[in-house]
């Protein structure tokens, strides 16, 4: 009788212990899930930010090539070089992009005037490579500088432009 009672008590104790362990495990699983949810919510934002930074880097790479860059200044495009490059069709595929357009952003003008040797610098858009269909643009700000003179002294006049680099849209099947 006493042995049986002791056995039941032991069973009860084991049951109690297993329930306790189960609840502790469940609790830690919930905490872990909570932690994962918090971490992944930041991950999505990190991904978007990362993609944008990558696009900015591609534009910087294009802007910083010696063919466009003004006197080793980062994110600066020489407008005088641009107008010379624009008339040379060999440079259309030089940057391996699907389209390359540089638009003056500030001072702002509502009217789009494509630049050519005849109207330069009274224009606001340089289309180096016309974007084809199914392309997506990434844009970034750069300085657009040209040589000017005032009172017989030469100086660099820098404005703000937007570089649009077009790449093919990847179609999901």
């Amino acid at each position: 009788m006493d042995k049986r009672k002791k056995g039941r008590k032991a069973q009860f104790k084991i049951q109690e212990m297993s329930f306790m362990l189960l609840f502790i495990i469940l609790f830690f699983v919930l905490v872990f899930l909570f932690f994962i949810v918090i971490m992944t919510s930041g991950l999505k934002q990190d991904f978007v930010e990362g993609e944008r930074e990558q696009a900015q880097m591609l534009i910087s790479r294009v802007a910083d090539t010696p063919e466009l860059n003004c006197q080793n200044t980062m994110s600066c495009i020489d407008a005088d070089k641009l107008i010379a490059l624009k008339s040379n069709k060999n440079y259309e595929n030089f940057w391996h992009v699907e389209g390359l357009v540089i638009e003056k952003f500030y001072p702002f003008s509502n009217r789009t005037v494509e630049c050519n040797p005849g109207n330069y610098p009274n224009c606001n858009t340089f289309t180096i490579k016309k974007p084809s269909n199914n392309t997506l643009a990434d844009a970034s700000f750069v300085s657009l500088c040209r040589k000017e003179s005032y009172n017989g002294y030469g100086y660099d006049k820098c404005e703000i432009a937007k570089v649009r680099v077009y790449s093919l849209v990847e179609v999901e099947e």
Partner: protein
Amino acid sequence: MLKIRDKKSQSEIIGLIIIIVLVLVAGVVFLGIYLRGDSGVLREDAEMKNFLTTSSKYTSSCYRTEETKFKTLGELIGDCYSLRLCSDGKSSCQVLQDTYGTMLKTLKESNSFGLVNYYKLGFYFSQNISDLTQRTPISGLKDIEEGVRGKNCGVQKTASNSISMGSEGDVIVELAICKDE
């Protein structure tokens, strides 16, 4: 017999309390680490930072005869801090403020950063760039702001650009925007 049973239950209660305390400590440590990681500081927006850097190289209308050059906005910040005038008698601070004012209006109207409800551009001086809590607003340069900053800002983004003033310290130009989600 009763005494032994009491002692046993007491030790079980102590065990449970220890587990609860451990879990609580772990929770507090985790929350501490998580909150310290962000600490309410907004992440810098790469595109906005790029705009600020580019705008500092913009050639302003402020000409200085003794230097025979038009000053960039970045240089004008230094001139404004030293209260220098342009050759036409205009204050460097005024030219700086007017140029950034129209520039930011253009930026808002072009929707370059999405639908911006509110923006604010501030100029601060800091002797130690690594400790931005010590920064002070530059006298003579007001914040440039437009729009209404409601209780719900939507998406808030900031970026800053520092311009060195040599041994004196740095000027920090900070742009903050609120835009629709």
